[in-house]
Structures are given as C-alpha cells and as structure tokens.
C-alpha cells in the first residue's frame, strides 16, 4: 500500500494499524478535523502511517454489523496538510477505505460489504472516486466494486 508525494511523484509505503491509547493525545481537531476521542468507545479506530515514519497521516473509524456481514465507515480524516489543493500526499483516504474493505472481506465470509452514510453533497463524489454503489441513504462496496478498489489501493 502506498501514497504519492505530489511534488516529487515518489511513492511511499504506508501501513494501517490499530490506534493506541497514547495516540489520542496527538489527535487534535485542528489537524484531524474531528474529535476522535469521542469515537473511541463506539468504533474501532485505525491510523495510517508511513512505514518509515511515525506521523499519523490519516484515521478511520469502523463499526461492524456481523449479522449483515457489513462494516460501516463512521468517520475518516486525512491530516490537515493532506487536504485540499495544496495537499502533500495523494491516496490517503483511498488506502484507508481499501484497508477497511480488506478487514470486511476477512471477517465476513460470504457477502462482505463496506458502507458509509454520505452527506448529500458528497454522494456523487464518493461514487465516482471509489466506485461506490448507491443504495438510497447509504453507499456501499461489495463484490467486484470492492475488489476493484482493493486492487487499486492495496498493491
């Protein structure tokens, strides 16, 4: 799994790991957009880091619905310097979503799915960017669209 430096075009290997208690001290709203401490009891939070680095570049909060063989993305944030036109790295959110898909595929043996509830204004952007399927209120990925996303980001 890699991200791309937008200036040098260099690829940097990244990995996604479970968040540790000490990490929460570093997760400011200013840099990671939301209050992640609030999420720690209701979802499983993971962090994306460079393989050769300690800085957290992105976060994702996931909740499983085993009866539906589904994982839901509750929240996702790239760090502040990786948002907007001036961002440093490409692919952070894609890597985190693909990681969540991989988790779902490993946990749920028959019909694994990954879903999120989008803000109305963002719905079409998630569909075109990540190949998500429109199911009314929610968007989701499963079978081929999910495999395609994993192929693109997990290599």
């Amino acid at each position, binding site marked *: 799994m890699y991200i791309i430096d937008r200036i040098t075009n260099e690829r940097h290997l990244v990995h996604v790991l479970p968040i540790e208690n000490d990490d929460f001290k570093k997760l400011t*709203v*200013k840099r990671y*957009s*939301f209050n992640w401490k609030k999420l720690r009891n209701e979802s499983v939070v993971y962090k994306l880091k460079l393989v050769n680095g300690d800085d957290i570049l992105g976060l*994702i909060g996931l909740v499983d619905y085993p009866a*539906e063989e*589904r994982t839901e*993305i*509750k*929240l*996702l*944030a*790239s760090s502040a310097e*990786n*948002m*907007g*036109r001036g*961002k440093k790295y490409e692919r*952070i*959110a894609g890597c985190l979503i693909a990681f969540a898909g*991989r988790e779902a*595929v*490993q946990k749920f*043996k028959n*019909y*694994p*799915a990954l*879903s*999120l*509830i*989008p*803000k109305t*204004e*963002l719905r079409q*952007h*998630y569909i075109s*960017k990540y190949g998500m*399927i429109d*199911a*009314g*209120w*929610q968007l*989701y990925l*499963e*079978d*081929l669209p999910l*495999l395609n996303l*994993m192929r693109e980001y997990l290599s």
Partner: protein
Amino acid sequence: MSIKKIFEQFTPDEIADALVLPVKLNAKQRQEADKHLAAHREKRRAEMTEAEKLNIKLIQLKFQLEDYVKQEEYNPQFSFGYFLEQYLLLTNRKKKEFAHDIQIHETQLSQILKNRREPNESIMIRLELHSNNIIPAIDWFKLLEKEKGHQLKTNRSLRDKESGYVTRSLQLV
C-alpha cells in the same frame, strides 16, 4: 473543525478525497437506511454469478495466506499443501482435473499437497496464472520460504552434522 467550515474551505470533491463526515440519523431514518441497503444488497446477491462468488473466496484465501506469511509465528498447519488444498476446494477441482489444468503429474500434485515435495518456481507461476493472477506466484514463494526458514532455524541434526566441517569458528566475546 465544524462541518460548515469544511464546506466553506474545500470543494465537495476535495472533501470526498480526504474525509468521511459524520452523519446523524434518527432511529427511524437509520432503520429505513438499513432496510434500503439490505434490499439493495439482496438484489445484487441474487444476480451474482458463480465466478463473482469465487472471486471473493479467492481474495479471502489470498489475504489469509498473506497475513500468515507476514506474521512472525510459524504454524505447521499452514503449509504450502494446506493452502493449495484450500485452493482446490474453493475452485471445486479434483486432483486429477487440477493436475491436468496446470500440466503436472497427479502424483507430483499429491506429493506437494502432502508436503512431501517442494514445488518449483514454474509450478508457482502456473498457480498464479491458474488463479487469473489473484494469488501471485510471489505469495506462494513467500509461503514456501517461511516453511524453509523455519526448517533451517530448527534443524538441530543438520547443525550437529555440519559442525564437523567447521574446523575453526570466530572467537568473540
């Protein structure tokens, strides 16, 4: 940062590129959203082809193999033969049929499945091609390497035998 500020500062495309925002639904809305999603997925599942189902199963096997190779511990159960047998089960291939698919002798395949014979690189590449590149040869190679590494680390009798050939070793503190 408030949601309002995020929308002021970034375009929708930039937001979708970096964030999934929190969305609060009341219990009724949540129920309706889950109902719609379940119905949508059920329809898709009904239309899913056997090939698509197999695709998912193979990806799951690939992830299981990759995760095992990555972890430190050696597990004698997760041998090359074990993963290859799982592959045959998922693809619904009998030994004879599979041996024919990849053009090796059935006896050779049986020996590999029982871990009595080591697969060579050609076989690992044939496995990659047979899976339509879903399980790459390098994954099979790393699995074999893990087994061999464990054997090398734990082979006491070979160490005893080879020690006879080392007439002088380094004197270190």
